[in-house]
């Protein structure tokens, strides 16, 4: 595990639509290993590995963007009201810190501290940047911010903000180095705007027009107290997508991944996710249709500032994908 790289990736600022810093970081790490690199009109970064002319054209996608908040109003006293970028839960926000692109930090808190309602509304929350009045606020309406939470490694577990889906970005960066002999034409797609509707992957898939697409993203687990039934456990291996609420994985892609897991002798799980989907769902419906599937990293507390994954699952996902693309 390259903890330094994962730290850089998870801590980079990149809410949906503002992925510049993540892209610059990834670019630096994939440039030595890519045959071509380009940024497209939606800001997707596409790193290309040229095959031997006998393979297939395959997209591997991980999204660069993370959830966040955006300032909608600044009041006279200098408190900020905000809306959410992607699936932010108000409950997770209370007491959280956020960071703006310019480095300004803010604390999110709830009006009426005595209010103990279990699910506050976003409109009851505000960001405090420590200002004393409106003129003192260093950021303006429309400014996006991300949650602040460092990466921690504890045994095999990794905890951080934005593991959804910087862990996928990490896997693709490592994978690119390991598939230098792959016969396939591989397009490593670091996509934008997944969290606001799978936007980047859709247009990138259109321009690449591949034979097959595989998303690498996180999925929820069923192994926490009173969790909804879900046969995915942290540490039991990467999860091969069968279906989620946006897509049924193409059986050919699913089988390719299962065969690869066996070949690479890594444990795997099968994933049926009832709520949520990935870039693969958008790529599947591009042009005349693209056989698509996904490899998921089991992750607890998705879309909270403290997402948790297992480093063995990550290592096994890289081995599995390397075997699939060999």
């Amino acid at each position, binding site marked *: 595990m390259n903890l330094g790289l994962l730290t850089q990736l998870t801590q980079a600022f990149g809410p949906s639509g503002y992925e510049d810093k993540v892209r610059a970081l990834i670019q630096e790490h994939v440039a030595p290993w*890519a045959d071509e690199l380009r*940024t497209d009109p939606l800001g997707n970064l596409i790193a290309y590995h040229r095959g031997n002319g006998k393979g297939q054209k395959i997209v591997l996608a991980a999204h660069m963007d993370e959830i966040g908040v955006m300032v909608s109003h600044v009041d006279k006293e200098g408190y900020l009201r905000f809306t959410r970028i992607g699936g932010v839960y108000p409950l997770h926000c209370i007491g959280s810190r956020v960071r703006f692109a310019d480095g300004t930090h803010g604390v999110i808190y709830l009006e009426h501290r005595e209010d103990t309602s279990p699910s506050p509304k976003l409109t009851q929350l505000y960001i405090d940047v420590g200002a004393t009045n409106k003129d003192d606020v260093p950021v303006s309406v429309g400014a996006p911010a991300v949650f602040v939470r460092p990466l921690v490694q504890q045994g095999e577990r990794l905890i951080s903000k934005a593991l959804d889906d910087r862990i996928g970005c990490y896997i693709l960066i490592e994978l690119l180095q390991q598939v230098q002999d792959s016969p396939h034409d591989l397009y490593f797609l670091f996509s934008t705007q997944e969290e606001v509707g799978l936007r980047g992957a859709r247009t990138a898939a259109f321009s690449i027009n591949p034979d097959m697409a595989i998303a690498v993203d996180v999925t929820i687990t069923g192994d926490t107290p009173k969790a909804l039934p879900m046969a995915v456990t942290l540490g039991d291996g990467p999860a091969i997508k069968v279906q989620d609420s946006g897509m049924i994985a193409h059986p050919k892609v699913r089988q390719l991944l299962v065969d690869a897991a066996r070949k690479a002798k890594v444990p795997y799980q099968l994933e049926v996710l009832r709520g949520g989907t990935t870039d693969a769902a958008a790529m599947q419906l591009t042009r005349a249709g693209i056989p698509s599937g996904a490899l998921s990293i089991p992750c607890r507390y998705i879309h909270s500032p403290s997402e948790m994954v297992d480093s063995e699952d990550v290592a096994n996902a890289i081995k599995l994908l390397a075997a699939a693309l060999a």
Partner: protein
Amino acid sequence: MQLSEAVGPSGQEESIRLQLEDLWRPFTTTMRADAMGNLIAMQQGSGPEPRPAVMAAAHLDEIGLIVTQIEEGFLHIAPIGGTDRRVLLGLEVLVHGREDIPGLIGTRPPHVLSAEERQKTVPWEKLFVDVGLPAEKVNQLVHVGDPISIRQPLLTLENGRVAGKAFDNRASVVALTLALEELAQREHAWDFYAVATVQEEVGLKGAITSAYGINPQLAVALDVTFGKQEDDSKIGVFELDKGPTIGLGPNFHPQLFQRIEATAKELEIPYHLDPTPGASGTDAWGIQVAREGIPTSLLSIPVRYMHQPVETLARRDVERTGRLLATFVAGLESSYRPGWEDEVDETAARSDQ
């Protein structure tokens, strides 16, 4: 602004499109209607070939009503798009059957309602249109599926304000027309496509197909946004007569935002910032993901009482929007392409193969 009186519920935009064709013809190099019914007018630029294209889209359709059933001469109705049921009672309408027939929206009188019913808005199934004709005549003239539009003449208020039934989005169609007029007199390097899109109110349909068809290098959508009114919060609403709003967020390319903002400053046009963290609910959302992706921006005109028959705006905001769009388009250099801060340097990739 009389365009607000023209009839064009989603999916039935042909008659207003024909009116618009006449209005736009003097200012365009070529004009066509595509298979969906979008009106696409092109004004050729002066730059060298291959010339980049900028598309500006304003939706032509309006919300309305549709006949769902005919019972003893009375017409049962359902909404087309987000029609506000609360304000329909007692309105005059036009039923677009075999001919246009005036009618009104009725419901049962208050005397016969229970106390509880009187407190509630009338559900769709209890609203009907009465055209005054005997049942046999109605059956001859009207069919299930015929559209119905609200009959509401333009009302000029004090202080440069006007009210009408379809300023969403005829206000933007007018702004787009003003931009076309202005650009016909001005030098512009890029080809300018003015597009009056169809079926926005039912899912951005016309924008999706027209953007695919034109495949422009960048696009600006024009729409309306919430004008500040008496009973509002301060968030997400914008004062009338303080200029258009410029969208900020993932739906909008940051460079286009910067250029448009700079243009507004240069023209001394006031504007608001409209933070939009996800779906903008406008044509911009459909256009941005056409084909390989199209850098897109959004200008919105503040309108009060949206989706009600008395949508109210400040005339000057419409003029400002047209002028801002025209100057932005005229300022696009031949070689300009929207890019990203850290655009990949092609030499960054290894070059050993």
